[in-house]
């Protein structure tokens, strides 16, 4: 306990390990990216710190177009931070990240054309109806509003299309967020704990959408704590530990609370550090 240092203090600034970590991460990330045309994501040495604490310490991950990757890790290990960096919502402290060849740091607008982010926060307007929320999203995305009714029908919200989102349950809000993704049809889908608050039908709906995207050649990264709902959807799983992306062992899966069935899922080796 005596060695704990609060971020932003002088002692944190002077601690040698922070400077060593920074030097290591900087050296790792000074690697010219090798951009393969079929890579949906090419993350190289991505690091991010909050104050003096490094959450990511040089994460590498390559995801090919058409590949579905599960991302595991304990609470606070940096899964959501990694996803937010890919989605251009957060800037990396070091490292490079490319989405279909576009750099998330310098070509954010191009990246946002490809990426669809499903966060645990719904990102909806309470005082707009379900239909109006989708109409706003379609206008912002530049997609025709004619597809809204089909998207609402698909997520089972047609009967409440003209009701304000304020009265929706969390599950209904999640479904509406999914309808927004259905409208967008992104080439790289980032799903942060997508099965939370979804019933069995909602989970089937989510998996159906992921498979559909897969069939169309899109890629997905799915942050999970329990792998069971994603059975049959993922091509491989990776884990974030100590700020880096690793191949998970059965012991990792068990320690991180994944169900025993999860261990039977394919564990990928391609494209990880």
């Amino acid at each position, binding site marked *: 306990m005596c060695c704990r240092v609060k971020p932003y203090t002088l002692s944190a600034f002077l601690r040698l390990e922070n400077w060593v970590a920074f030097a290591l991460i900087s050296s790792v990330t000074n690697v010219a990216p090798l951009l393969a045309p079929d890579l949906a994501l090419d993350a190289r040495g991505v690091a991010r710190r909050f104050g003096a604490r490094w959450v990511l310490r040089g994460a590498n991950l390559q995801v090919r177009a058409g590949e579905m990757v599960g991302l595991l890790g304990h609470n606070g290990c940096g899964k959501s931070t990694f996803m937010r960096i890919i989605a251009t919502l957060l800037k990396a402290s070091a490292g490079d990240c490319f989405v279909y060849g576009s750099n998330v740091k310098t070509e954010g607008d191009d990246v946002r054309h490809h990426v669809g982010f499903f966060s645990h926060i719904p*990102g909806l307007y309470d005082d707009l109806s379900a239909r109006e929320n989708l109409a706003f999203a379609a206008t912002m995305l530049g997609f025709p509003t004619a597809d809204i009714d089909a998207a609402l029908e698909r997520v089972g919200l047609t009967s409440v299309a003209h009701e304000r989102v304020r009265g929706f349950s969390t599950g209904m809000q999640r479904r509406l967020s999914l309808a927004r993704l259905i409208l967008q049809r992104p080439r790289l889908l980032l799903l942060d704990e997508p099965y939370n608050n979804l019933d069995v039908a909602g989970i089937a709906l989510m998996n159906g959408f992921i498979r559909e995207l897969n069939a169309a050649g899109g890629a997905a990264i799915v942050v999970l704590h329990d792998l069971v709902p994603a059975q049959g959807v993922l091509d491989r799983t990776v884990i974030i530990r100590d700020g880096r992306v690793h191949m998970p062992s059965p012991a990792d899966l068990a320690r991180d609370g994944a169900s025993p069935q999860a261990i039977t899922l394919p564990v990928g080796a391609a494209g990880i550090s």
Partner: protein
Amino acid sequence: MAFRDDVRRIRAIVWKDLTTERRSKAGFNSVASLGVTMLVLFGLALGPDSVALKDAAAGALWLAVLFAGVLAFNRSYQVELDGGALEALLLYPGSRWAIFAGKLIANLIFVTLMLVIVVGVGIVLFQVVVPPTWPAIVGILLLGVLGIVSLGTFYAAMSSRSRAREVLLPLLLYPMLIPVLLASMIATKALLFGDLMNEVGAWVRMLSAFDVIFLVATFFAFEYVIEV
């Protein structure tokens, strides 16, 4: 084509902000009430002296607009933060300045509507006789509101990520708005009670210059303050 896309996004943001505000009602009611309350309190503080009331009318009006406006600017981003919608807004492709322009136009409409109420109440409370130069006064009111809203919308975006945003926004905004407030107050007063020193033109030029500076600077800087 890209510009046309941005114009479409600006229109969508304006529609969204005004629709949510119209439906929730809490925002406009509280902002307009604060503006009117400020005028009433100034009136009570100055007492029944009609000359003192008229002298202070322009200053009271602009301070009421400023304080009520801060509430409006904070609220315009609170709507985005409530359901994590700001994140979704930033995920849409397109220029960041389109988001700022949409918010700016929505806030301009919102504050102008509030201004109509505050001016109406101010005329009655401060016993102001509307002069024949009223179109020029309307012009100064609009120029002043443009300066306050452009900087207010910008600083509200900057402070929206902070937990102490309600405190941070006035601290950042008030000192920067001194030139706009000063020019607006003196020009309004001169037009209401006679421009003896023939100074309105100079103050209007100063007000216009600050409006242009604020607009250009905030449009360029918005991208850097809204991203983390």
